């Protein structure tokens, strides 16, 4: 087995009670995926800041590859999907993985369930042997949303300002579905994201099509941009009807579709401008941190002005 050369991040706070954050061996491996680091790095920096503030010890998985995605790559070749997932899981042996993306979460969690079967695992390990790795089958996978949800009290303690905003939360598909495998929250009426935004002072607004896909998943964004944008437009129109200040998501791929897709639709004449924030950015705002919103395609910094107005 190769040793990981990832950089360790320990909490900056000194008054923490969590044993993990004080440990030199962090409890979690942070899996960043592709879209956050390479298209929306503010999601990466906000995630790190929030975990630090909450006193959650982690190490960034710098040797990780693409998860790979549950729709597109799994649809090309199931064996390839499982093999690359197993390699990623093997990098975290001894720790739990935190993912910040629904696609990464769904892939790694489902693969971890499939790979509990030792016959399947042995077969995949035959391939991993060629690169000097082995997956032993004992890595658990969590989504950042689960970590935040189990830290609501701690968030209340460390938050520095209430975000008095009307928020439309967008769960996306692969945070809760397929529920028989992911077992996170209700697949029809989840509440975790709603409660997280509410704990920092926002109002989670109900809207039509709340559980509708952003349109990007399953390889559709790549093969049929028009179909993907049809979903996105419908979602954005419902959010506009609900008069939200912003939309908060748990997935950089949904984030990309809602933000870049919105920019395309605006060029085509759609009169909607809704800032898109990943949950890590939203919590970072409550910590009075610059959430890097200027890197969004849709003008999003006015959300900060709105916060000042509502103080």
């Amino acid at each position, binding site marked *: 087995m190769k040793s990981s050369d990832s950089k360790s991040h320990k909490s900056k706070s000194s008054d923490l009670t969590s044993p993990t954050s004080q440990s030199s061996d962090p409890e979690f491996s942070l899996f960043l995926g*592709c879209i956050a*680091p*390479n*298209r929306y*790095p*503010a999601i*990466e*920096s906000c995630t790190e800041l929030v975990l630090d503030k909450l006193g959650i010890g982690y190490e*960034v998985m*710098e*040797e*990780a*590859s*693409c998860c*790979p*995605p*549950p*729709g*597109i*790559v*799994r*649809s*090309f*070749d*199931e*064996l*390839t999907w499982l*093999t*690359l997932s197993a*390699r990623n899981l093997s990098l975290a042996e001894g720790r739990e993985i935190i993912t910040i993306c629904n696609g990464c979460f769904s892939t790694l969690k489902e693969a971890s369930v499939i790979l509990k079967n030792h016959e399947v695992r042995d077969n995949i390990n035959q*391939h*991993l042997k*060629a*690169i000097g*790795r082995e997956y032993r089958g004992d890595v658990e996978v969590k989504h950042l949303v689960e970590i935040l949800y189990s830290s609501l009290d701690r968030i209340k303690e460390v938050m520095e300002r209430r975000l008095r905003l009307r928020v439309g939360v967008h769960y996306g*598909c*692969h945070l809760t*579905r*397929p*529920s028989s495998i992911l077992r996170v929250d209700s*697949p*029809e009426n989840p509440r975790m994201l709603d409660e997280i935004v509410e704990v920092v002072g926002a109002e989670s607004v109900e809207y039509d099509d709340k*559980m*509708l*896909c952003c*349109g*990007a*998943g*399953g*390889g*559709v964004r*790549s*093969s*049929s941009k028009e*179909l*993907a944008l*049809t*979903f996105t437009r419908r979602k954005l129109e419902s959010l506009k009807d609900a008069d939200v200040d912003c939309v908060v998501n748990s997935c950089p791929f949904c984030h990309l579709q809602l933000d870049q897709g919105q920019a395309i639709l605006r060029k085509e004449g759609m009169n909607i401008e809704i800032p898109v924030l990943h949950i890590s950015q939203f919590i970072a705002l409550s910590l009075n941190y610059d959430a*890097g919103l200027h*890197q969004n395609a849709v003008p999003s910094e006015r959300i900060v002005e709105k916060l000042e107005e509502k103080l």
Partner: protein
Amino acid sequence: MNDVCIHCGICTASCPSGWYTPLVTRRVVGGEVNTMEDVWACVTCYQCEERCPREIKVVERIIEIRNELVREGKIFESHREAALKLIESGRIVPWNEKSGELREELGLPRKREKCAEEVKTLLKLTGFESLIGGG
């Protein structure tokens, strides 16, 4: 058997792609549909599976059909390009100079991924490279 379709149509009624495309998930389950246009209209949202009273793995079936089509050499060009990115860089959404600029602006390391060589080896072993036509 709990996996026999009773033709209730709840999968089709729950399918958002079905609102906008000819995809009829009930017909996919019945083995009547397997064209590229049909199976690649699915966004894998899993609403159909969640609601199926017989717990039929509808999305799994769609993914199986997609795998079969790829093995027959049927793949959209945009998908082949995405697959080639995975082969080249280990990522479907690879790092580029613009990523480096955005990252540096936020005080993050310009680039911190190291996976390409190992992924390349694995993609040869699984047959993905020859499947996609990259090698």
